[in-house]
């Protein structure tokens, strides 16, 4: 478990165009430069928003990674919910889902 390193990858990716280029050109090489366990590496390798959320990545970091991957806002919220269904409750951090997973923005979504 190295949530710090996992978040560090995404922090750097969110703010550094060179890292974004490395991500697209050779993701494995980029990930090799961080001390990640297998699950964390898989989450990044697959762009698995749900798993990253459950592993405890801070939402203010994760939402920009989702945007970087081209994921729309409501899909991003759903991916977090599905992550909890698949992998269980958020394991660390302050961005846990404390409600029942209901949408609070349904009306806008239905437009």
């Amino acid at each position: 478990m190295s949530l710090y390193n996992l978040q560090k990858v995404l922090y750097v990716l969110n703010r550094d165009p060179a890292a974004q280029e490395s991500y697209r050109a050779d993701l494995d090489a980029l990930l090799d430069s961080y001390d990640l366990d297998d699950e964390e590496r898989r989450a990044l390798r697959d762009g698995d928003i749900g798993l990253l959320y459950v592993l405890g990545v801070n939402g203010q970091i994760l939402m920009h990674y989702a945007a970087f991957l081209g994921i729309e806002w409501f899909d991003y919220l759903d991916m977090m919910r599905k992550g909890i269904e698949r992998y269980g409750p958020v394991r660390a951090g302050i961005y846990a889902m404390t409600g029942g997973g209901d949408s609070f923005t349904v009306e806008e979504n239905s437009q």
Partner: protein
Amino acid sequence: MSLVYAGVCSHAPGITGRANLVKDKALREEFYAAFDVQRQEIEASGAEALVVVAAEHFANFFMNNMPAYCVGMADYYEGPIEDPEWLQIERRKIPGNADLSLRLTREIMNTVDVAYAEEWKFDHGIIVPLNFLTPRFDMPVVPVNINCQGPPLTPLPRAWAFGEALRRACDAVPERIAIVGTGGISHWPATPDSGKINEEWDRDFLDRLMRNDKAALLDYTDEQTYADAGQGGFEIRTFIAIAAAARVPGTLQFYTADLPIFAVGCTVARFDLDAAA
């Protein structure tokens, strides 16, 4: 005598980035109009620089080296760090005033061990409010950060002490200074509960804030805040710091919990500095 304006406002990225998804467009326009009143009041105050006390979100500061408090000290800044299309704010340079920042920081350091940064990329916490308050991006900005994202967080009484130090610093420089605190009250942004707002909690907090009731404002624990107001509620630190700097009661100019796509109770308020003069 040189603090000429003090106020608070919301800073969520959806305010600009998801504006097109709002259902109640008339209410959205009311909120934008309240921002514009705040802009006019800042301009009417004759402010020569705007100190923005915000809670950033890993644009500059990370858990490798996380200051509880930091003041920007550069002649210009850049932002937004987010994808401009995502935030719907064009990337640009924003003027700063390194010399003013230096003088403010020196004074603050007499009572608070504040960090400083000569490089700073604005995220939505600063640039969304600036988009409304200085739409031409022509007023020098002094960015200030209070860590509200990566615990351990500064205790609320320290946020109050920081606000007091900031006031002393503003009063020690000859320039006319406006200060704005940006953040959210109760909110659960970037979680599946995004859009949830505890209006009752918000209105109670805003009542304490507008009365500038120090004891009541500091009477929260992070455990209570997390339970009642979400992780976004930790950002009350920025509003509390402004109350401490203002020293006087204020006027709530706008609040609504009915724009959930912005993922925050939308707030605009000022402290009534003139009434104390």
